[in-house]
């Protein structure tokens, strides 16, 4: 059977998203993202909401926050605490892995 070679798609690195793009990406409303920023869960670049740019780990964090709210009903404050604890946990796991060599 002939194997067809897939055409390679070019990809852009999505480095940053503005507020509207992030809302669409996370399927949440603007007010929720603003609340996450108010709680320090996300820290976008830029002074005003219209200037906000969410880079790299902020995008991943926003998506996680959206899922935690939707699936577990957690509020912004709780989500902030959970994400911080999870980062710390992952850091410790990496440290343990290094010492186990």
């Amino acid at each position, binding site marked *: 059977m002939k194997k067809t070679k897939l055409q390679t798609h070019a990809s852009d690195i999505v480095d940053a998203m503005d507020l509207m793009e992030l809302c*669409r990406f996370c399927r949440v409303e603007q007010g929720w993202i603003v609340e996450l920023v108010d709680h320090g869960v996300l820290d976008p670049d830029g002074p005003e909401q219209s200037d906000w740019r969410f880079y790299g780990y902020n995008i991943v964090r926003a998506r*996680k926050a959206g899922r*935690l709210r939707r699936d577990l009903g957690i509020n912004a404050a709780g989500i902030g605490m959970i994400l911080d604890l*999870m980062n710390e946990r992952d850091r410790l796991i990496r440290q343990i892995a290094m010492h186990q060599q």
Partner: protein
Amino acid sequence: MEFQDYYKVLGVASDADDSAIKRAYRKLAREFHPDVNPGPEAEDKFKAASEAYEVLKDPEKRTAYDDLCNAGPRSGNFQPPPGWEQGYSFSETSSSDDHAFSDFFETLFRQQQYDQGRHGMVRDQFAKINVDIEDVYHGASRDLILQVPDMDQSGRVRMQERRLAVHIPKGVQEGQHLRIKGDGAAGDVLLEVSFAPHPMYRPDGHDLHMDLPVTPWEAALGGKVAMPTPAGKVDIKIPANTRPGQKLRLKGRGLPGARSGDLYAHITIVNPPVETETGRQFFEKMAREMSFDPRKKMGVT
């Protein structure tokens, strides 16, 4: 299709009341939520619990499900009795992030979620892609199989496979997303980049860590040591009296990107196995002539 035992999934009796069902679901959701518990097993358990709760929390769906349970045998190839769905009116199922539930659920409980207008709506697709660390250094092309939710005539959602090859740009970072522009009919594909675990290299932010085994004489005398890096072989100079656990930093040889990180080689000193008389004599000479007690401060002399 396979019959789903929702009461068993949640671990409740079939006559459990609403609050018991809610409590059971919440406990499982907390424990197996994929954001807290990475890994495919947790995700499967979370999906199963969500599906079970979706049916059992809704009085109409639960009644219909209980009737199905009582209707007959539930072995492997389950078929609902004809016309069973008449007499129930199901409200809309809450959407669940692009993933279909089991065949059992989709066939029996999924209601038409999209009206005619939304059927034409172009939706972006999200997925996660596991990238090898070497790909990050050189760029690469990777084949990907996406699960695309697809709606048939009767409004049921099925997952279709979509295969495509995507270019991994050099220097992409974990947590970044790659966008593949859609061709109009399909939406964009957004891929979250995650690094596949590597037997030799451990990423930490922009830096990379690895173990570098050296012989006792290399550590003691210092000198040139060849070591692998994701970009290729490199000769490094280790200092005399290198200690075990010492970290050697190779600046700028970490993960590439806007900010390139460093590569850290963690020294481990490995003794050669003693298998010949000559080898034994070397070590016996060391024991005689090098006065060194690593346990001096432990109070056992």
